[in-house]
Structure formats: structure tokens, C-alpha cells
């Protein structure tokens, strides 16, 4: 299982999914009215490291963070 956490303004509780890659996650998010708007504009970290390759392989126990658009300062 892979743990998914939604950061900042995405008001969705953490979930656990049985997925192998980010494409699977994207398919899951597309089906949720509250999540699909974040797909195109969010960055993704796996175990706190930003991932830039869509075919990145996920392993059981990984923690995936969804990072929506930022504005510090």
C-alpha cells in the first residue's frame, strides 16, 4: 500500500492506495470531484523528494505528497 497525503489547501484526508506509479494515482484523482482540479497544477514528492518523472515506480510503504501551487513570503 502507498500512503497519499494532500498538503496545504487540499482539504482531503490522507488515503492508502494499492498503486504502482503516478499514472495510477492520477486515474484515482480524476474520479474525485474534489481532487481532479489539483492534478495539472500540483507537484509530487515521494518520501519527501520531489519527483519529476511521470513513470516513477512506487513501492509499498512509500509516502506520496501532493503539493498544490505555493506562495510563501
Amino acid at each position: 500500500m502507498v500512503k497519499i497525503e494532500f498538503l496545504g489547501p487540499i482539504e482531503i484526508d490522507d488515503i492508502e492506495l494499492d498503486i504502482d506509479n503516478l499514472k495510477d494515482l492520477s486515474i484515482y484523482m480524476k474520479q474525485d470531484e474534489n481532487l481532479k482540479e489539483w492534478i495539472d497544477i500540483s507537484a509530487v514528492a515521494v518520501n519527501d523528494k520531489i519527483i519529476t518523472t511521470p513513470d516513477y515506480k512506487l513501492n509499498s510503504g512509500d509516502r506520496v505528497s501532493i503539493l498544490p501551487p505555493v506562495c510563501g513570503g
Partner: protein
Amino acid sequence: MELYRGGLRVNDITNRWYQDISKSNYGAFITFIGTIRDEDNIDALSFDIYEPILKSWFESWQIIANQKGAKIFMAHSIGDVKVGESSYISAVASPKRRVALELIDEFVEDFKANAPIWKYDVIASKRVYAKDRSTPMNGAGVLSGEEND
């Protein structure tokens, strides 16, 4: 890197950083202080921070700075910060001025674009995500199948 609940004590922080670098033969020290402006009828801004990635982001900048003989500092608020208070301070110390002038600009701009911090307007005690002023981070779009950096 320093995180504080609420508005920053600007003088305490900047004076301490200046004290910290003043024995190290740096010729230039630049501080950037961000203050919450009175606009759009807000009472305050509020900030969420994802600390693990903010920390690694900051450390990667510290390495860049060190390679130029420089040192960087940063403080940021968590939660509500009232109009007129400061939510963000950063600083660069370097032997010569050009490195400091260029680094503070690059650092502040990358901070705005990539530090994992989310901003909310606080209006009548309600927190509203400042979506239209926010920027997708480097790597955003990876869920749409875009290779990005």
C-alpha cells in the same frame, strides 16, 4: 532556517544574524524583509508549511551559497500574521557585493516559486486559499504525464 508561529520579531532576528556573520569577514550582508500589506480588506494572511521539503529546499540553497563563499538565512511564519507584521525574512552574507546582490534576488524568487508554503487570506476570521497568487512548483504537471523540471 527558522520557523515561528505568528508574525516575526524583525529586529531580534536581523540583529542576531548580523551578529552571527560579523566575525566572519563578510563584506556584504543583505536582508530582505517581507511585510503583510493592508490590501483587499484582509485582516491577516495565514501560512501552512510543509517543513521536510522546505528544509531540504533551503539546504540545497545553502550549498549553492557556500559554493560562492556566501551564507544564507531564512525565517518564516506559520499560521496567522496580521497586517503590518512581517512573515518572511531572508538574508545573504558574502565576501563581495555582487554575489550577495545576485543571490538574494535568485533566492527570494525561487522561494516564491518553489518553497512549499501555502498562503491564505484571512477575512472576517475565514481562511481563503490565495490560489490566484500561487505558483505551481517545479515539477508540477507530473501527474498529467508531463516530464518537467
